[in-house]
């Protein structure tokens, strides 16, 4: 019995050592970093801008070489139609090359067998919309046209160049790009789940403004009111959020706040009124105690009692309290404007 116990203890130690070695191999598998992001502060819609990043990969795990594609991604406003308007090239000490759009049918390896997400969907799940606030951005993912043989315990240094025709929708867009880099054999498998993980190639760019003749879309600065989804039509379910913390004048009193639509406009030129009320249908609900964020979800087609022939184009609105105090655009009395559009 004593001998048996001794063997058990030795076995446990051996297994613990093995586990630590295996853990160590995984933890030190790769260090991927994106740095020295070069991007313009401003640009004009319709022009082509170049963004470059420097990238380094330190491979540090024993085993055979892996043959894989380099994978890079950039977070862009949906209105840029980044998939159609972006080309990517790279240079590195393993060779230079072009990149192609990652097919949406390719499963990102860390989700294989579980959620089976595409690269873009997996990046949305892991990195969200970066340092932006309005969910009107998308991850545009590319892979190297040629596969590369990646050896062990080497350092790959390179540059990635994104050439983007910005502002395809013609709007003025303010946003903060973000970047991801990995390889196709492992995908995002080594991402720790911590956005500030310095060992995994996720990084964010500075604020960028693309000026266009259309609407102003500020995707990264806190707004008094915001919409989810950011772009919607009358048959979408539209969630409006009012950020009371940004009401510097403290115009609204109490916790009963309401959506007051002064006028809704339809494509046939009609102006719909009578939708400014303080009722249960228009009352916003605080997301949690003291969050200062109030939300209301409406189905515009039903809310405005539209006929099947009517198409909603925009609405002018305020947020009001139980006493009728009103907050509008930039904390003024002018109404907020929301346009019903997919572009």
């Amino acid at each position, binding site marked *: 019995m004593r001998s048996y116990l001794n063997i058990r203890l030795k076995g446990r130690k051996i297994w613990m050592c093995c586990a630590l070695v295996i853990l160590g191999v995984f933890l030190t598998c790769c260090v991927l970093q994106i740095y020295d992001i070069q991007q313009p502060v401003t640009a004009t819609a319709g022009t082509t801008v170049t963004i470059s990043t420097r990238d380094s990969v330190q491979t540090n795990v024993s085993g055979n070489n892996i043959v894989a594609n380099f994978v890079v991604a950039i977070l862009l406003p949906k209105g840029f139609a980044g998939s159609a308007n972006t080309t990517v090239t790279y240079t590195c000490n393993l060779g230079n090359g072009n990149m192609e759009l990652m097919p949406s049918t390719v499963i990102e390896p860390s989700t294989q067998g579980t959620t089976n997400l595409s690269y873009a969907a997996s990046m949305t799940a892991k990195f969200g919309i970066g340092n932006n606030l309005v969910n009107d951005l998308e991850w545009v993912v590319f892979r190297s046209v040629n596969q590369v043989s990646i050896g062990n315990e080497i350092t790959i240094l390179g540059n990635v160049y994104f050439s983007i025709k910005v502002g395809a929708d013609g709007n003025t867009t303010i946003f903060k790009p973000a970047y991801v880099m990995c390889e196709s054999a492992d995908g995002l498998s080594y991402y720790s789940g911590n956005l500030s993980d310095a060992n995994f190639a996720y990084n964010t760019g500075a604020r960028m403004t693309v000026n266009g003749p259309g609407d102003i879309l500020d995707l990264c600065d806190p707004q008094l009111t915001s919409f989810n989804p950011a*772009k*919607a039509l009358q048959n979408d379910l539209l969630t409006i959020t009012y950020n009371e913390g940004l009401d510097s004048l403290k115009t609204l009193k109490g916790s009963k706040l309401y959506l007051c639509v002064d006028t809704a406009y339809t494509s046939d030129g009609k102006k719909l009124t009578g939708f400014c009320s303080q009722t249960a249908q228009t009352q916003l609900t605080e997301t949690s105690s003291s969050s200062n964020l109030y939300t209301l979800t409406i189905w515009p087609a039903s809310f405005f009692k539209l006929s099947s022939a009517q198409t909603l184009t925009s609405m002018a609105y305020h947020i009001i309290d139980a006493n009728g105090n009103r907050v509008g655009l930039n904390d003024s009395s002018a109404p907020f404007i929301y346009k019903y559009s997919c572009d």
Partner: protein
Amino acid sequence: MRDFYKFKVVHLLLLLLLGLASCKTENIKPVAESTKDLTGTWKIVKATRNGTDLLPLVDSNYINFSKFSIVFKSGSYTVANPLPFIVTQNGTYSLDNPQFPFTITFNQTGSTTPVSTAFTYPIVDGVRVLTLVFSPGCAQNIYSYSLEKVN
């Protein structure tokens, strides 16, 4: 002694023949896949918009997921207490394959344009779940409703 062995061998051969004769080929017919019968009333048990759970967001008095229902019967469907959905009018429906459907098509009354969407019909926790994915507004806004049969 030799006759004894001959006798034994003959008996063994007879036994072997009897054993072989007792075997017969059994033809096993594969079980036919059942046709996917949607007949009944279906209610929403889960709803998402671009991956966000919609159920906590809606006002139960004005946008009511628990009241919404769709009834499938004899090739027709009827929607009650409408919500943003793949169709807005009642009509007929069809599956691309009754046994292995991948697509469900709705033909709204008064419309000449059928609307199709991917059809998934898994068993979750022992219950059939019908999941429909669609975009009632902007194409980039993806809604997913999961429905369970209530009768």
